[in-house]
């Protein structure tokens, strides 16, 4: 082994440390809460539950089919849901976006009052007080929003607030699904 090779080899630990540094640096700033949903590409799970507004009305996953739509998981105890609610109302009213709600781990009267006070952007909200549908959807915490196609297959999922910043990429997908359907 020549002296030059030996000297170059001395640089090896520095190079390894450098490569490791670059690798770890890429992890900085990545949101650890952003987990890929296992449900993407899968149909909505089966469920059979009361709606929030009328306990006598039983809905199933079949009631969400026919058109692409958003399925929004929300609760009155969730501050971020409050923050995004106005935005949901605006896209439902102005852009006619179809939104179904999943009222997650909540109390019926409080949730009904919330919709009366803040407006109801949902075609209907599934009442899920024990989080049973939540588990089958792979819900980690509210709010979460799923984009489903006309057949009820989950196309995309947003964890966290739906707003002016997070809606546009979903909107593009929603509109193209809408075009395919019509």
């Amino acid at each position, binding site marked *: 082994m020549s002296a030059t090779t*030996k000297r170059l*080899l001395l640089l090896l*630990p520095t190079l*390894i440390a450098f490569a490791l540094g670059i690798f770890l640096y890429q992890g900085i700033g990545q949101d*650890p*809460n952003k*987990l*890929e*949903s*296992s*449900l993407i590409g899968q149909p909505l799970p089966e469920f059979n539950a009361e709606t929030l507004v009328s306990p006598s009305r039983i809905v199933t996953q079949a009631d969400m089919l026919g058109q692409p739509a958003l399925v929004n998981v929300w609760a009155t105890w969730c501050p971020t849901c409050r923050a995004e609610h106005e935005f949901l109302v605006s896209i439902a009213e102005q852009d006619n976006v179809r939104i179904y709600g999943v009222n997650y*781990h909540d109390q019926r009267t409080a949730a009904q009052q919330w919709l009366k006070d803040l407006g109801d952007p949902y075609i209907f909200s599934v009442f899920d007080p*024990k*989080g049973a549908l*939540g*588990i*089958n*959807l*792979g*819900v*980690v*915490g509210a709010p979460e929003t799923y984009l489903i196609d006309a057949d009820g297959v989950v196309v995309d999922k947003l964890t966290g607030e739906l707003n002016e910043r997070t809606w546009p990429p979903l909107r593009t997908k929603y509109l193209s699904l809408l075009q395919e359907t019509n």
Partner: protein
Amino acid sequence: MLKVALASIFICLASLVSPLTQADIKSYEFAEPEMAQRFVDLTTVLRCPKCQNQNLADSDSIIAKDLRGQVQTLINAGQTNQQITDFMVQRYGEFILYDPPLNKSTLVLWLAPIGMVLIGLWALWFFGRKTHTQGAMLTPSEQHKLDQLLADNQTPSRD
């Protein structure tokens, strides 16, 4: 006396690390005692998807409570540990496993430590060998000179 004190400290510490306290397990009812042990095992190796650095047994978040309840229901329904794990992975992804399986996306995770140890061993061998050869590289005349220098240094100074 000291032994008793040490033992009680140890028991206190042990209770800190045990995932579910006795009272917690009792609030989950099982048909057979063996099932309660499986419940403890499963909630220890399944990760809370919300809090991420805790397992299901440790976490107090809503989702962890729900999933503990789900594990209980599935155990009582007669499902095997494998079936329950599959159920969780299907909904929450492999992320939910504290012991990730070896596959394409976890290859680096599994092999990096082995690689680091190999690099370390190689470095030990490489740099260790180098020191020895340097020591042996003195020619007889150089060695003689060195011995003389050392001997000079040992003679007491006259100042």
